[in-house]
């Protein structure tokens, strides 16, 4: 049951490939609505489109969901971080973030991952500068951006299939606490 303000409107969305009609307050932002429907990977770090933690794909474009009215997304196709990989079968960008220790508190990471995926989609071989520019409106308070930038560059290499790391999923990392899922870097995502 939505916890919303304003008039309730029905919004048609395709979220991570699943068509659904959601109830939302007319004034609700998209992040609130997605979170109410269980897509908690969409984080709210500010109150309106400045920190980047709520980034999702809306019809293929990266948008900060908290800075967008849900009603404006009517009819669109949304992809959240949940659509990328699973814990046992990470997207190569996610895998690279894990392997490069680019994650500390992790609150900004879903938005960061979405932005990185978008970048590598349009620019599979970015320079460090281009990575930094792409992540410029993603606020991170833990990492100093050093390892996230390295992770995105690493992911780019993996996805281009240029490095042996891509094949064995992060050679420098010892056995993961969850076992050996990290072998096989991207569960097929490499081909994208």
């Amino acid at each position: 049951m939505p916890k919303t303000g304003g008039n309730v409107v029905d919004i048609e969305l395709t979220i991570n490939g699943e068509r659904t009609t959601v109830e939302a307050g007319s004034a609700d932002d998209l992040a609130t609505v997605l979170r109410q429907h269980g897509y908690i990977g969409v984080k709210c770090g500010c109150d309106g489109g400045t920190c980047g933690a709520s980034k999702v794909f809306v019809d293929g474009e990266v948008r900060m969901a908290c800075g967008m009215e849900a009603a404006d997304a009517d009819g669109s196709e949304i992809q959240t971080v949940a659509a990328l990989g699973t814990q046992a079968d990470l997207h190569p960008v996610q895998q690279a973030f894990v392997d490069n220790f680019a994650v500390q508190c992790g609150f900004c990471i879903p938005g960061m991952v979405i932005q990185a995926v978008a970048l590598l989609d349009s620019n599979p071989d970015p320079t460090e500068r281009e990575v930094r520019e792409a992540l410029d409106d993603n606020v991170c308070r833990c990492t100093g951006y050093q390892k996230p930038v390295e992770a995105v560059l690493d992911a780019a290499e993996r996805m281009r299939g240029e490095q042996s790391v891509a094949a064995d999923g992060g050679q420098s990392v010892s056995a993961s606490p969850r076992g050996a899922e990290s072998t096989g870097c991207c569960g097929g995502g490499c081909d994208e």
Partner: protein
Amino acid sequence: MSNDEETAKADGGTASRSETAEDERSEEHPLEWDEPENNDKAPDERDSVSHRTEKYDDRKLVTGQAKYTADYEERYPDLAYAAVVRSDIPHGRVTDINTSAAEAMDGVDAVLTPESDAVPDAKYTSAGQSYPEPSPWDMHVLNEHVRYIGDPIAAVAAEDRATATAAVESIEVSYEKYDYVTDPEDAFDEDAPQLFEDGEVENEIVGHDYDRNRMAHIGGELGDVDAALDGDTHVHETEWETIRQSHANVEKHTSLAYTNEDDRHVLITSTQVPNHTRRQLAHLFDIPIRDIRVQKPRVGGGFGGKQAMVIEPIPLALSLATDRPVLYEASREEEFYAMRSRHPMKVKAKTAVTEDGDIKAIDIYALSNTGAYGSHGMTVAGNVGSKPMPLYSKVPNARFEADIVHTNTPQTGAMRGYGAPQGTLALEGHLDEVARDLGLDPIEFRRRHHMEVGDLDEIAGMMGGEGANRRIRSCGLDECIERGKDAIGYDDLEQPDEDHLHRGIGMALSAQGTGVAGDELGAAQIMMNEDGSFHLQVGGVDIGTGADTAFLQIAAEVLGCDEGEIIVKSSDTDVTPFDYGAYASSTTYISGMAVKKAAEDAKERILNWGSKLLGEPVGDLETGDGTVYSEASDDSVTLEDIGYEAAYGDDEREHILGKGTHCTEESPPPFAAQFADVTVDETTGEFEVQKLVVAVDCGVAINPGMAEGQIEGANHMSYEMAVSDGITLDDEGRAEVADFDEYGLPSATETPPIESILVETHEPTGPFGAKSVAEVPTNTVPPALSNAVRDAVGVRIREMPITAEKIRSKLDEREI
């Protein structure tokens, strides 16, 4: 440390270096630590520690499945949402709160004011420190006497966020306005508006003088500083100023409070200190400690901002009033004006140095602006001296004093570095200036004085009493400097081709502590499952640093199993043993050692069972590779076999358990050498930092990947202190920053590349040789960058942030 002891020190506590006392101190602080053999492992003997083990929650984090406090929303169908009415005047008394419109609104469940029964009227401090807190009890949950723009006055719970916000907006507050003061120097004046009446505050702190808005005065001296200053020496004096920095946690302060069917008052909350929060809430609400449960889920960054119990009392009061779960998630705007920030300070540094470059005395004074309330005021100011000054433990005479003053400005509190950044700026900027004045190499000048292994650090004890003296048993400063120089290219710096561009390198050293000496406690329990896996329960708090993973590695190293065989459960006061919490860089050192002890306790039982099954004496056995094996016979038995035998065997059975608790008087310093490479445009004053290098000695890094992450993140925060305005205030003390857009948090493009270097030493008092790492790299960029600018264009910026305008105006001054 208790406040009484602190009082003694304030009354002119001095110490002297008498040779006769040295022997006694050596006994008290032996160089040779009675270290268990298994604590010191050569790198090739380490199976788990100092490996780059994957952070155990990373997969959840990158897939968005990790749950932070607000993500528990869906579990509570009848959840109500909180919002808070805050003072919009800097100083005054609330004369009336008109809540009728709010109460009449549909969907409003409760409106609380300072008068409401559900709102405690006890005084408290939000500090989140140990008991009794070294912070004054000067706060109320909701306030009639408001002291800054942001003081909470009333709170609302409603069916949804929008209604809660609308209800808050409908509440009309009338005030009697008082005079206010926002500048700390003005506030110190006897005629300044007074924030607290004498006697109004409980648990007062040493040196308080509320007539002059002083919440505390502290000081300590080693040797005779005045005599040294009067002697035949060069006396330098410099003054430095630091910004009001925001923690800017990406996850806002968020708490969810409810009472479950077992009558347990539960808080799921984004906190660094579950056990202190439990105790403070019990005090405030007059509920037995045993009836409160504080659970820390994933936390989106703390940095000290969540050491304070900033918001928890409000959702708890609302939950008690409405009899339903209540979620309070601060707004980003509130984060900037109503939560906590780093104390802005003015710090004076004075030294007496001989012609030859021997430092005879260091004298530091800090004036700290604690804002409207006093939490962490005294202790943060103490660290301005007690963290950086011990770097130069060979200096015979040292003095530190500080005044901590209230103003009608937002509240300050604990923040990563905890006074050390302010002190490090002053001292490391000052020494650089002295070296350059005397024509000495700034690095060599420091090398002559800095700490070494074997030193008895009496400066740390200068304020804490002799008990706080410490023996230095690990120190990698030299190597930090060397490797830092290499990495930054110190000796082959090339100047840019353009004449108006000048390149320079600045350096700064830093030391921190590892936990609060003599005021920490961590505990852990381990249970073995029959398949040879383990459950680890530990009070220690992972706020995103990877502490849980470090615990797993430490336990795995002892138990001889893979980290994946251990399930960690941490930071839940109903389940996990006690812990002081994640502050003062204590987690690896204190909680990690408790984990190690618990694991060793369990290992003793495991070896016992191994002995029974292998028929060999315990002394011949060791754990490793998921087995107990005999070095004598090469036989082995798996942990799984032992688990099944212990649980289901025919003879006696036992659930293999281990427990460990750790406290210590030790707090060994980790060290850092920071380098900044800057290019300054002398025509505009604009500058660009090409690179930051920071080399850190944190003992043995339990997980180098995570340690690097700590260093880089801290350096980023430190860089912000050097180049950003922080939270600026208007004349009334109103924060001019309401969102990230307006706050100068350096973005990915604005942040220079940061190279982190780990210099391994072995600290015998730490788990497997570890010291802390999280804070020390927060301290160093402001002085290093100030020094680099000085190196590049010869001007000195002492007031943070360093800006093009300031450089330009200094350059202009110089030309005139």
